Every structure is written in structure tokens, then in C-alpha cells.
């Protein structure tokens, strides 16, 4: 009994520490690192949803960029063409994206895992075609501009800093939500049906777990996480274009989930942080060594990392953390 409480207390401690670090960090860092941290924040949110989907429920999605993009575009459309408040648009976009994901999830229920991977991969292309064809709505291939910024009147003047707090407060809240979720009846139900990690769909069903309902719901959940991040991203950048939301982004968050470790929502931060950090390093140093378009190094690095991680460290970085900090049953 006490061990579960201990593990719970450890989580509380971790969360509190995290909050403190979040608040203090901007005071120590300059504007450039803060911009990088904002990026990490976005990725963390999307990756967290993906971790719940892949690591806990054992499902696969190679199409998270689509939901990220839906969040961005729907918010963009609602604010630029219907002049809704950005916050309202964010919520509506999340609901819409969740609904679409639920429909797609439902349609994919009959498919085998591997095929689901293929279908979610295909979604990237469908989304791209959709966005580029609905030119009036989305601005087509050249993108949408003039998306209003989120603002808290006059409180924090510096724009990047404002977004830093915005993204990270939301990431923080979602972290708490996720931690609550995975250490609960729902979390156990998801894990019980995760065939890839030691669960069993048949046994779960025999114990009353409605696996079809959960599969659809967890897929929608991961889409909602991505949508929220997408909406904030749209407000942050101000203009969005379809090329951003493609296969590369989808695979990048999968890499982050795998690298970070899919056994805990905390893995999202590890994964996002590592990959964004690596990307920054590459941008700084690679052009010195080998001339060439910077996108190239990232692509090669992502590919190599994905392969290495799958072959040698499938548990992700968080497994190293688990070894350092003894966990009770989690």
C-alpha cells in the first residue's frame, strides 16, 4: 500500500519541481533559448498525446501532423474568417479535430495494426491535397496569413516570452491530465489491451474492457492534444502553410515518442527536448563540416536516430530514468 503512495508522492514532487523550473527558466535564459523552448513545448504536447496512444494503448499513428494541422487551420479559419476569439477557436478546433479523429478511428477498427500505420501515413497526403485544394478557405499552397495573436493585455510585453508561458502552462496542465489518466482505471484498461507491450485484447475484453470504444477514444484524445498544440502554433507563427504539416512532422513526433520513452507521459519532454536540441546542434555545426541544405542533415539524423532507437533502445530515454529512480508499481 505504501509503495503506491510513495510513487504517487514522487510524481507530485516531480510535477512541483517541473513547475518551478518552468517558471524560473526564462529569467536565466536569453531570447534564443526561449524560442527553442517554445518549440519544444509544442512538440511535447503532440508527443504526449502520441505516447498515450502508442505507449499505453499500443496503437500506432503516423499521421499526428494531420491533427496538428487541423488544429492550426481550423483555428486560423475561425479567427480570420469568422472573427471568433482565439481561445474559443482553439476549443472548437479541438472538438472538431477530436470528432474527425473519432470517425477515422472508428473506420480503422477492423484493420490490422500494420495497415493502420499505412492508413495514417496516407492521411498526411490526403490532408495536404485537402488543404491545397480548398484555396478559398485555407490559402492553398501559399498558406494562410494574418492569424491574430493570443494576448493577455499588457501583462507580459515580450512576445516570445508570452508564448513560452502559454505553451508551457498548457503543456503542464496536459501533463497533469495525462498522469492522472494513466494511473487510473482508464490507464489500466488501455494498458491491458496493449498487445505490443504485454497486454492482451482477448483477456481485457473478458474482464469487461470495451476495446473498440477505448481505441476510438484514445485515438481522438491524441488528436485533441495535437490540435491544441496546432492552434497555439498558428497563433504564435501568424501564418501557416501546408508543407509544415506533412509526413516529416508526423514521423518526427513518433521519433520523439520512441526516444523519450513511451512508458510515461514524462517521456514527451525527454523526446521533444532531445530531438529539438539535436536539430539545433545540427543547424549550428553541420554547415561548417559539410556544405548543403540544412534540411538534409536533419532528415539523415532523424532516419538514423529512428533506426538506432528501434534497434537498440526501444524503451526510450525514460528507461534510463527509471533505473536511476526506483519506482513502485506505476
Amino acid at each position: 500500500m505504501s509503495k503506491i503512495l510513495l510513487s504517487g508522492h514522487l510524481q507530485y514532487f516531480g510535477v512541483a519541481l517541473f513547475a518551478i523550473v518552468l517558471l524560473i527558466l526564462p529569467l536565466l535564459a536569453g531570447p534564443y533559448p526561449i524560442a527553442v523552448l517554445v518549440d519544444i513545448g509544442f512538440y511535447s504536447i503532440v508527443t504526449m498525446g502520441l505516447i498515450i496512444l502508442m505507449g499505453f494503448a499500443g496503437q500506432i499513428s503516423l499521421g499526428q501532423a494531420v491533427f496538428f494541422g487541423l488544429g492550426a487551420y481550423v483555428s486560423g479559419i475561425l479567427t480570420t474568417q469568422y472573427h471568433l476569439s482565439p481561445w474559443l477557436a482553439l476549443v472548437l478546433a479541438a472538438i472538431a479535430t477530436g470528432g474527425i479523429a473519432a470517425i477515422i478511428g472508428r473506420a480503422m477498427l477492423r484493420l490490422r495494426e500494420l495497415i493502420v500505420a499505412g492508413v495514417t501515413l496516407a492521411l498526411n497526403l490526403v490532408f495536404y491535397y485537402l488543404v491545397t485544394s480548398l484555396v478559398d478557405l485555407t490559402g492553398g499552397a501559399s498558406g494562410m496569413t494574418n492569424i491574430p495573436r493570443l494576448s493577455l493585455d499588457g501583462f507580459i510585453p515580450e512576445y516570445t516570452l508570452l508564448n513560452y508561458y502559454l505553451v508551457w502552462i498548457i503543456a503542464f496542465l496536459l501533463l497533469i491530465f495525462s498522469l492522472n489518466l494513466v494511473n487510473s482505471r482508464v490507464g489500466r484498461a488501455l494498458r491491458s489491451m496493449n498487445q505490443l507491450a504485454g497486454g492482451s485484447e482477448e483477456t481485457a475484453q473478458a474482464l469487461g474492457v470495451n476495446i473498440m470504444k477505448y481505441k476510438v477514444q484514445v485515438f481522438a484524445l491524441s488528436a485533441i492534444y495535437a490540435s491544441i498544440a496546432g492552434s497555439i502554433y498558428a497563433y504564435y507563427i501568424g501564418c501557416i502553410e501546408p508543407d509544415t504539416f506533412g509526413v516529416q512532422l508526423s514521423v518526427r513526433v513518433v521519433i520523439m515518442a520512441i526516444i523519450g520513452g513511451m512508458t510515461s507521459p514524462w517521456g514527451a519532454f525527454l523526446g521533444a527536448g532531445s530531438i529539438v536540441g539535436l536539430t539545433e546542434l545540427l543547424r549550428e555545426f553541420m554547415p561548417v563540416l559539410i556544405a548543403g541544405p540544412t534540411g538534409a542533415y536533419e532528415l539523415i539524423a532523424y532516419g538514423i536516430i529512428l533506426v538506432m532507437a528501434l534497434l537498440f533502445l526501444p524503451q526510450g530515454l525514460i528507461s534510463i530514468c527509471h533505473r536511476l529512480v526506483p519506482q513502485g508499481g506505476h
Partner: protein
Amino acid sequence: MDFSVVLQFLISGVNLGCIYAALGLGFFIVYGVTRVLNLAQGEFVMLGGMLTVSFYAMGISLLPSILLAMIITALAGAVLYRFIIYPARNSSGVTQALLTVGFAFAIEGIALLVWGWEYQSLPNFLDSPNIQFWGATIFGQTPWVVGSTFFMVIGLFLFFGRTIQGKALRACADERLGAKTVGISTERMALFSFILAAILGAVVGAVITPLTMTSYSIGFPLTIKGLLAAFVGGITRVEGVILGGIALGMVEAITAGLMPSGYYGVIALGILIIVFLCRPRGLLSARGKV
């Protein structure tokens, strides 16, 4: 509707259909023998095209350029299997598919590094001219596309049906354990299937470059479309894959002709996805295991 318009649709449809069918064959070979979904198949196509362009630009004549491109791409396929898939042969199918994705990314990055952003092109093979046919245009390269797909299919049929190696490959696909029992090295067969798929992909790449141009990023869209075509037709049978390819080609050609520009992509893909979701086994799937 004008006869020439319909004819144009048919010609475009067959053209596209052959491309997708050939792509699908690549998936079929690898999936059939190894049960791995090779999401890097599009990259083989890209490599085939880009390499052919480079060799041709160096002054080497067309056929040797294509052959060189095929060899190098085959090497890439071998690397993919030997160093990436083989070590993970006991992992889940999803893990293996993700590994091919990683490989695809790396190949794309290398392509970007070597060749840069721009699209590259080739002249029509033997400078075949466009043919006007009852009011419709047959692009000069089209006969090459259709022809190469045709020969690929015939070649594969003969290979799988007549030769010992081909039969061994089929044995691996149908019954792995049994194949091992009779002494067939499933690893060798798997390696061979990857190499074969790579070579096929390279040929497709070379053949379509005069028509559609090529660049470092054409890999994934091709992979996705080829995959969809293969799934819709039924990835477990050659006829299914070919049917799926032709179907996608036709749907794309017709929607491109009928719709205002831009929408056709969504419609075409959308139609196919819906068809697939209704019949996940594929239109022509084999009875039994998928």
C-alpha cells in the same frame, strides 16, 4: 461526352495505372516474402530516377545509366534488409515498418545533400515523340511506361512460376516454417526480395522521370499512393496489386479531367480510402490470411 476526351482519360489512366501497379509490385514482393511493409519503396523509385539523371548527365548513354542506377538502388535495398530489417527480424511488423521509414528519411536526406532541391528531368527514351491518336495525345514516354510495367509483370509471372528461386520465394511467402524445413534460407530469400523490389522501383523511377520529373522528395507521396493501390486491390495477390494500381490510375485520371484543378487529389485518394475501408482485405484478396 467527346470520344477523344474519354480516350484521353483512358490513356492517362492506363499510364498512371501502370506506374502505380509497378509500385505496388514492389510492395507485393517484399510483403509477400517477408511480411514487412516497405515504406521506403518510393525512395527506390526516387533513387532510380535521380541516379539515371546524374549518370546520363555525365555523358553515359541512357541504357547503361539506367543499369547503373538499378545496381546502386539494389545495393540500397540490400543495405536496408541486411543492416536494418534483419537485426529486427523478430520484432513486430510495426517496428519493421517504422525501420523502413527511418531508412527512407535517411535516403531522402542524402538525396537532398547530393542533388539539392531542384527537380530533374530526362528526355523521352529514344526521344519518342508524342502521338496524336483520334484526338487524344499519347505522351512519348507513355509506351515506355506501359511497356516496362508489362514486361515486369510478365517477368515476375515467369520468375515466380517457372524458376526454382521464384518458387522458393513463393514458398517463403506461403509457409515460412515449411520453407525452412526443406532447406530454403528464408534470410536469403528476404534479401533477394528487397533487392528485387529495389530494382523494380529503380526502373519505375527511370521510366517516369521524363513524364513527371524527379526530386528528392517524391518518395513518400509515391509510397503512399502505391501502398493505397496495393491495399485496395489486395496485397496478397499479384492480380490484386495490378488491379489496385490500374484502379487508382483510372480514378486519378478521371477526377483530374473532370474536377476543377486541385480537388482531384482529395477525391481520388478519398475514393480509394473509402473503398479500402469497406473491403479491408482488398478487392481481390486471397482467401485466408492477409
